[in-house]
């Protein structure tokens, strides 16, 4: 499908593809096997200016939007979503500052993230607060010119590797949903440390780690916007980041389709390439069609986000949910088409299938995305009846 991209958008896509094929492809299996953090690749992505795509030019970025970002993510994800998750999580850490930060905060942190000199991370989840983010226990208490943070965040992507963390913590428990606030915490702040690094099913080159606040003192200027905005900030951030998860899914699924078609043309059974069997052709046809449908939805949602609407929660939830369910199915079918070889680590199909699962879980499970879409529908139709 031709999306009539501009010259600059094509350039972004081409460059991301070049980096993915020249740098990521040769090492993706090793990174997965050894669960090593891809620092070298992060340097390549930084050199290529890919960290700056959606950061405004005045803060050292290239001034693109969610759509351009999705184009880059999709191309990188075709080769490895472990590496691409690491890349995208840095952007997730930057979004709260980009959307809600003060001029000083933007000046200080965005150029560092845009240049890839420092990685970002976003921390909300805790052991007992996943989908139910409102039940987080981490607190931030004012103390003179400082806030003091206490608590433990769990499963933080880029934990330990990133240097700039945006953290959601409770500032006033009595206020419920209005009682949380967002803060910037830097690696090296007193009382800030890292706990267990998880061993995962997929995206194994990405770091998923506990981050621990033990009497962690940060200057008051690290508060983003004002107290009580924590959950609003988190929700708005997810509204613009979720099309990116959709792009991860589309890229991953495209990589799986590329592999499955190539294999099906080469593998001979009963004297014929297996692609000549209609059962295989139909599977491939469904895979290709669903990828194209998801891509169209992701691109549309990303462009909608870039139009700066009042509320993009429904559209971005749809892009995330539909695409990640699609990627799970497509990667599973790719393994099926490769048969026993698909199950072996000699081929990337099994990795793609293991990797795909996370897309249905993080940045809000797909059940939660359906809740968001359902609630939006409920609101929309109420408004119309009036």
């Amino acid at each position, binding site marked *: 499908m031709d999306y009539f991209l501009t*010259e*600059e958008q094509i*350039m*972004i896509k081409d*460059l991301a593809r*070049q*980096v993915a094929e*020249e*740098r990521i492809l040769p090492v993706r299996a090793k990174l997965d096997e050894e669960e090593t953090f891809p620092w070298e690749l992060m340097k*390549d992505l930084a*050199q*290529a*200016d*890919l960290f*700056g*795509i959606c950061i405004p030019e005045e803060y050292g970025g*290239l001034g693109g939007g969610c759509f351009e970002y999705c184009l880059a993510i999709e191309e990188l994800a075709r080769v490895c979503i472990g590496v691409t998750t690491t890349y995208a999580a840095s952007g997730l850490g930057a979004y709260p500052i980009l959307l809600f930060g003060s001029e000083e905060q933007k000046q200080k942190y965005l150029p560092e993230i845009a240049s890839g000199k420092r990685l970002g991370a976003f921390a909300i989840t805790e052991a007992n607060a996943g989908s139910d983010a409102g039940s987080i226990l981490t607190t931030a208490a004012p103390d003179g010119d400082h806030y003091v943070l206490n608590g433990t965040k769990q499963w933080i992507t880029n934990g330990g590797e990133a240097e700039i963390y945006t953290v959601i913590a409770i500032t006033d428990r009595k206020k419920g949903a209005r009682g949380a606030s967002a803060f910037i915490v830097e690696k090296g702040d007193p009382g800030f440390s890292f706990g267990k690094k998880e061993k995962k099913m997929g995206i194994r080159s990405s770091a998923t780690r506990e981050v621990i606040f033990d009497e962690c003192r940060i200057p008051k200027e690290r508060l983003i916007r004002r107290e009580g905005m924590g959950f609003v900030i988190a929700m708005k951030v997810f509204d613009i980041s979720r099309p990116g998860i959709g792009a991860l899914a589309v890229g991953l699924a495209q990589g799986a389709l590329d592999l499955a078609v190539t294999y099906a043309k080469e593998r001979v059974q009963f004297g014929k390439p297996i692609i000549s069997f209609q059962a295989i052709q139909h599977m491939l046809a469904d895979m290709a069609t669903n990828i194209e449908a998801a891509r169209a939805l992701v691109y549309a949602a990303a462009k909608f986000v870039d139009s700066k609407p009042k509320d993009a929660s429904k559209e971005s939830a749809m892009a995330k949910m539909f695409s990640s369910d699609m990627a799970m199915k497509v990667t599973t079918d790719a393994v099926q088409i490769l048969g026993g070889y698909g199950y072996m680590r000699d081929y990337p199909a099994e990795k793609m299938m293991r990797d795909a699962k996370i897309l249905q879980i993080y940045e809000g499970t797909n059940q939660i995305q359906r809740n968001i879409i359902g609630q939006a529908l409920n609101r929309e139709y109420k408004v119309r009846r009036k």
Partner: protein
Amino acid sequence: MNIVVCIKQVPYPKDVKLDPKTHTLIREGVESIINPFDMYAIEEGLRLKERYGGKVTVLTMGPPQAEEALREALSYGVDDAILLSDKAFAGADTLATSYTLAMGIRKIGDVDIILCGKQTIDSDTAQVGPGLAIRLNIPYVTYVRKIVHLNSKKIRVERIMDDGYETIDLNLPALFTVVKEINEPRVPSLRHKLRASKTRIPIYSAKDIGADIKRLGLNGSATRVINVFKPQRKRKLEWIEGSVEEQVEKLLDRLRTHKIIG
């Protein structure tokens, strides 16, 4: 530091075909790349600039389509690009190529360092670098694997050899041809790619560089390609049998008769 990197656009190795009549490479309609060794020269130029300041210019002699190679070089961050292109340059061998490049570099003016690849993958002669240095009357070192340090006048480099390496000090300006051990080329950057797409690349003709028409292209070439053919293999295989001692004796015999050992 004024650095010039000479690059050549070559056909993508998988697509190479020869014209059966002229025996030259068919270059039309074939995907082209920057000669792989020249990528290391570009990277080294950029690293020198990052360490010591200055400016990196890429220079190529080639048909108008060689502009693509220059644009690609710009996307890695080199400052300027110059294309030497003229019908009169066509058919150049190493002699005419190095003369033309030398005239192009004279036109650029004060140059401190010239970097070339160790050789091309489409002609493999490895002569253009040294030929260019001679015409510019400056010292050169081939097969450089490391630039150790430099100041405004002097430079120290390491040259790779079969059995080790040499360390060489020389005065600037100088020319170096580089091997792939020298560095690991970076990836292009979006910012530079955007700039590259908008840069107007100057094209210099024979007249622009003040070249003597008799020394250019086919006219100025001392070599003519008469024929290109696959060498016939004339190998003989012989099994030497017997006990180990017998085999050794027989082998020594053969080696002596063929005067391989005394």
